[in-house]
């Protein structure tokens, strides 16, 4: 049980990077077919694109924003000489539960702006609610993994670990959204 929330006491660095990379490739391949876009550090939306590249770019931008802010927080708030490869690897591996979200997205239909304006006309199935709830659980799991990755790589603990992590996560989320929207939706 501990291992699924904190595998980083055993796996980090290059090993975490290639395992996380394998999960990322699988997730993105499924994303393309289930139209699941991970357009932010903790974001997930169903959005159909004709090419796989928006899904890939969203995934990479979100990941790198998280790496950047967790690393900067580490530089500012701890004296530990951490390795960037550990943050890169463990954060990528932390995103492994998104594979399950990409699978769950097959049960979540795309809802466009017109449909959203009259929500009463949308027919929500039981599958939609189950898949949405399951996706939410997986994203919470991902955030828990982000936190443990941060704790292990930066060697930070206690309340300082919690508030610096929240700060880094919020900044990474905002930055990733700004980047994604300025690159893709301009």
């Amino acid at each position, binding site marked *: 049980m501990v291992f699924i929330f904190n595998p*980083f006491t055993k*796996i980090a*660095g290059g090993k975490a990077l290639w395992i996380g990379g394998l999960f990322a490739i699988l997730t993105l391949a499924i994303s393309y077919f289930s139209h699941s876009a991970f357009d932010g550090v903790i974001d997930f939306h169903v959005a159909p694109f004709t090419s796989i590249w928006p899904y890939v770019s969203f995934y990479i931008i979100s990941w790198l924003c998280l790496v950047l802010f967790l690393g900067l927080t580490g530089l500012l708030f701890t004296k*530990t000489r951490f390795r960037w490869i*550990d943050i890169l690897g463990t954060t990528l591996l932390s995103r492994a539960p998104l594979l399950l979200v990409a699978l769950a997205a097959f049960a979540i239909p795309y809802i466009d702006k017109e449909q959203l304006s009259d929500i009463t006309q949308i027919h929500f199935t039981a599958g939609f609610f189950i898949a949405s709830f399951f996706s939410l659980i997986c994203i919470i799991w991902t955030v828990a993994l982000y936190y443990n990755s941060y704790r*292990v*790589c930066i*060697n930070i603990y206690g309340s300082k670990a919690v508030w610096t992590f929240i700060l880094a996560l919020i900044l990474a989320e905002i930055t990733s959204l700004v980047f994604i929207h300025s690159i893709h939706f301009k």
Partner: protein
Amino acid sequence: MEKRLPIYCPSCNSFLDVEAMSCHHCHTKVVGDYKLPPIMLLPEEDQKFMLDFVKASGSIKLMAEQMSLSYPTVRNILDSVIEKIKNLEN
């Protein structure tokens, strides 16, 4: 039975000092007031870690392989041992 070096006073829980040492060859006894070095005051598992770390030529990577732990986890253990030694020295 493996004997452990007692480092805490059973009465007041302060660190113990060394008062007597003896030569098992000629039975000479040396009596005085000697402080234990900081490394001897560390918990047993930390002493073992230090010993293994020196044997591994100070390589965190090698230690990680030997302990089946990740590199940052071993580095964090090392950081905590360093912190303990610094506290003991102060």
